[in-house]
């Protein structure tokens, strides 16, 4: 296969429509069609019993069409929302209802939906609805959840939703026998995905057809479709879901079905009018989902070289009010905490706790940042205890290049064994040390100190299981005009899928890139898919697209061989033309092959004539459509790997602390990462940049501030500090390693989350290196650092 596009920084096909203002995001859809708009009454209280809902005032508002409360739901729609990923350890899983059923468990939970002529009127009506509450005690923070003075759910007396212990080897004996032991406590606080476009749903019911079309700003059109069909009692083929242009996801939009994804279609069906809902920013803060909040206790036993003989981790995960996504985040922490290392023995135990706060579901990294923080801070602490270089201690613990595939003897988040397929961590370490100038740094730090400046360096390593299954699929079809239509089932939120999958098809099929059109996230075009998350799109759909393109190519060569009376082995496809290798005068256009691949009775245009029954002599004993084949030059193929493939990376940063104000400035930020084969290096770099930006944001700026009553105090962009350009370093120095994955046809590993995973660990380490202060809790603000330094001075 001639590689012309894969591996190139091809400019994106998405860009033209997006830079000209012709993107179609969910709120852009259905203008001028009499679409009604929804708004919600949401609980102002973190924990309350609903005594009465008086909608009288709302009915007076001009333009109100309908008001719904729990009483108006029926059948499956009135049942609790699903637990998407059940797990035996989730012994007390709880979910909410599409509209609150008697009790609310977090401020922001939906109680009533108003549908009106426009959003302004819907909000007026919502404001006029009077709800009578009996306020119940709030439970905020892991300490309060553990203490269980009050419960979030009446029937979960200890506030524990799940408890899981996994063990590899005899940790207790190894710990007892270890020459050295350490204990540490580490904490990461709550944050969230915060895409620039919130959630949005637009639903249309076709009464003539008995069918429903829903647009949703989601990361999984197929699963939302299944959920809507189930909840509204519709046959699956009568529901279509489309994820149009989506303004960022970062994990929050893989969670589904949101109450609004059920209620807005329900209203559209009942009112026989299109209905839409566009989440505003305040709603997003208090009724989407959050993540990251965990407290970890670590005990580690190690030898004189810093090799870990026993690693014993227990942690608490704050899952908020409900567990609709199961316990994926703490499972990811548990397994990915191991990073590139092979501790002698390992035990990890977690409890997932309820609090009366917004539900927790994955945010980019999905538990890995916490795991990396725990492991990397531990490595640093070991190095400090032994007086050894922090990279030497890490190197002593690496899985070696000749040890792959490496079995960590645990079960990963995909339910499959945690077996790393490929990687070269020592080489990666060499690269990152070189890029950041690790060995020269002590001299630099000393020279700065002589001038009264505080400089520090930190390093962090991670391994990321990417491309979990169970599968993805692709449909590739060559049309009779020579263009190629590709459809994949998963969705896009800016990753350039329409470009990268076109690159793969162009190379695999041998057609010009410009002729390939890719559709994502549209159940009308592709019905079986999982979704976009866990850095899986390139691995899963990329592989499926390659397989489908190969199938199409194989068929094209069969049909062409027949038409040219040549041998298949002698044929190749170049720029959309099937030619005999070495004799390009004997050729047939792929467009024509597409025509011939579909034997016709009726010619609807000139090109089609060639496929009709009298156009060519035919073998009277062979059926026009051969056994085992289908008409048309198309194929639907699936990629379903035995397990995930393991990307990895290392980050290093140099920070400077203002000795007076304790402000933290990132002097340099360096990344080396391995995501196997790169389809589009420009897009991968963009993913890493964006991930690092979110990682820095999470390390130094972003947190969610709940008070003891369960009120989110910083529910706006004024106080939730997403960084502008001015808060981020000038540039990210990016180094690249490629250890292809043996698990998929193109050797791809995922890259979507690479940038975010180790950042808190790296920056904590660098600040610690600069100040000598133990940093055990992130994020870290100048004010917090000032206090830590002051306490340290007085101590």
């Amino acid at each position, binding site marked *: 296969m001639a590689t012309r596009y894969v591996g190139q920084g091809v400019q994106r096909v998405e860009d033209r429509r997006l830079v*000209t203002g*012709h993107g179609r995001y969910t709120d852009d859809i259905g*203008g001028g069609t009499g679409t009604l708009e929804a708004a919600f009454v949401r609980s102002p209280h973190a924990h309350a019993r609903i005594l009465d809902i008086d909608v009288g005032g709302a009915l007076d508002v001009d333009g109100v069409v309908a008001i719904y409360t729990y009483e108006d739901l029926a059948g499956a729609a009135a049942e609790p929302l699903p637990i998407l990923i059940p797990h035996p350890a989730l012994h007390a899983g709880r979910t909410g209802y599409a509209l609150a059923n008697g009790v609310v468990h977090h401020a922001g939970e939906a109680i009533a939906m108003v549908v009106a002529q426009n959003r302004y009127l819907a909000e007026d009506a919502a404001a006029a609805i009077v709800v009578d509450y009996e306020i119940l005690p709030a439970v905020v923070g892991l300490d309060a959840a553990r203490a269980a003075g009050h419960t979030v759910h009446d029937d979960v007396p200890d506030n524990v939703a799940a408890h899981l212990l996994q063990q590899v080897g005899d940790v207790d004996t190894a710990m007892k026998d270890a020459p050295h032991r350490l204990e540490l406590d580490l904490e990461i606080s709550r944050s969230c995905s915060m895409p*620039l476009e919130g959630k949005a749903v637009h639903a249309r019911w076709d009464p003539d057809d008995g069918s429903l079309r829903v647009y949703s700003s989601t990361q999984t059109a197929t699963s939302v479709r299944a959920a809507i069909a189930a909840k509204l009692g519709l046959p699956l083929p009568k529901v279509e879901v489309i994820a149009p242009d989506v*303004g*960022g996801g970062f994990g929050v939009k893989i969670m589904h079905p949101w109450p609004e994804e059920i209620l807005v279609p329900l209203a559209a069906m009942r009112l026989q009018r299109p209905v839409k809902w566009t989440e505003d920013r305040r709603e997003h803060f208090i009724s989407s989902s959050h993540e990251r909040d965990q407290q970890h206790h670590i005990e580690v036993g190690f030898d004189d070289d810093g090799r870990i003989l026993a690693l014993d981790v227990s942690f608490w995960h704050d899952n908020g009010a409900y567990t609709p996504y199961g316990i994926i985040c703490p499972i990811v922490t548990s397994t990915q905490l191991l990073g590139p290392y092979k501790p002698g023995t390992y035990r990890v135990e977690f409890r997932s706790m309820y609090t009366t706060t917004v539900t927790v579901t994955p945010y980019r990294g999905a538990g890995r940042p916490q795991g990396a923080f725990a492991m990397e801070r531990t490595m640093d602490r070991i190095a400090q205890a032994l007086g050894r270089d922090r990279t030497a201690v890490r190197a002593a613990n690496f899985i070696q290049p000749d040890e792959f595939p490496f079995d960590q003897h645990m079960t990963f988040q995909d339910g499959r064994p945690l077996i790393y397929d490929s990687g070269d961590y020592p080489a990666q370490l060499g690269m990152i040390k070189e890029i950041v100038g690790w060995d020269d740094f002590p001299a630099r730090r000393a020279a700065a100190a002589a001038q009264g400046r505080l400089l520090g360096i930190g390093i962090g390593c991670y391994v990321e299981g990417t491309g979990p299954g169970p599968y993805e699929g692709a449909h590739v079809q060559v049309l009779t005009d020579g263009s190629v239509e590709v459809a994949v089932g998963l969705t896009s939120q800016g990753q350039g899928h329409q470009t990268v999958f076109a690159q793969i098809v162009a190379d695999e099929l041998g057609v010009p890139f410009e002729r390939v059109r890719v559709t994502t996230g549209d159940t009308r075009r592709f019905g079986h898919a999982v979704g976009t998350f866990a850095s899986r799109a390139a691995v899963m759909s990329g592989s499926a697209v390659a397989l489908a393109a190969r199938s199409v190519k194989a068929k094209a060569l069969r049909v062409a061989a027949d038409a040219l009376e040549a041998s298949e082995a002698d044929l190749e496809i170049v720029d959309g033309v099937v030619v005999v290798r070495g004799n390009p005068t004997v050729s047939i256009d792929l467009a024509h092959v597409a025509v011939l691949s579909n034997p016709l009775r009726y010619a609807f245009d000139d090109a089609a004539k060639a496929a009709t029954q009298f156009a060519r002599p035919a073998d009277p004993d062979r059926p026009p459509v051969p056994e085992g084949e289908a008409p048309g030059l198309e194929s639907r193929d699936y990629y379903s790997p035995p397990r995930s493939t393991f990307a990895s990376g290392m980050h290093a940063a140099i920070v400077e602390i203002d000795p007076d104000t304790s402000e933290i400035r990132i002097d340099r930020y360096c990344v080396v990462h391995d995501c196997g084969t790169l389809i589009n290096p*420009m897009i991968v770099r963009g993913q890493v940049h964006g991930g690092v*930006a979110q990682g820095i944001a999470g390390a130094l700026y972003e947190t969610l501030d709940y008070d003891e009553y369960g009120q989110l105090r910083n529910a706006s*962009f004024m106080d939730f500090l997403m960084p502008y350009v001015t808060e*981020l370093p000038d540039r990210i120095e990016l180094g690249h390693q490629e250890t292809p994955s043996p698990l998929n046809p193109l050797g791809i590993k995922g890259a979507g989350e690479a940038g975010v995973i180790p950042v808190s660990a790296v920056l904590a380490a660098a600040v610690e290196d600069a100040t000598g202060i133990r940093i055990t809790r992130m994020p870290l603000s100048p004010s917090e650092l000032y206090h830590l330094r002051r306490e340290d001075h007085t101590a």
Partner: protein
Amino acid sequence: MTEPTHEIALTVNGVRRTHAAVARRTLSDFLRHDLGLTGTHVGCEHGVCGACTVLLDGRPVRSCLIFAVSVNDHTVTTVEGLADGDELSPVQQAFGECHALQCGFCTPGFLTTVTAELAENPRPTREQAVDMIAGNLCRCTGYHNIVDAVLRAAELSRERS
């Protein structure tokens, strides 16, 4: 009781447009839903993210913080008005070349802002380019490519003139 409406006339992207709207109709909603120009996006409705930035009489403003009725008879340029027919403006072209957008939601706000800023300062230093985009949030790109795009747009403008 129905809310009174006001007849609002604006010159948008060179074309005189009129539509009735209630007083509290934000300029962002007016543009998007009354005039059908959905290129301007709404990210926060409190003026911080910049996705809604349009040019009012040539200067960038947050359309989510303006009521359409307040700017009756004024001139507005949105992202849909930046290209010259099929030809992308230097800023639009530069954003594509530099991979300065991923999901595209914040992009219209950057494009209008940068267009106005470069009109005023056609040869920015990198530091000045950073200043030009310092008031717009992007969640996807990490900004580095956007700064590159500002400088590239300046270069393209010079090439074209």
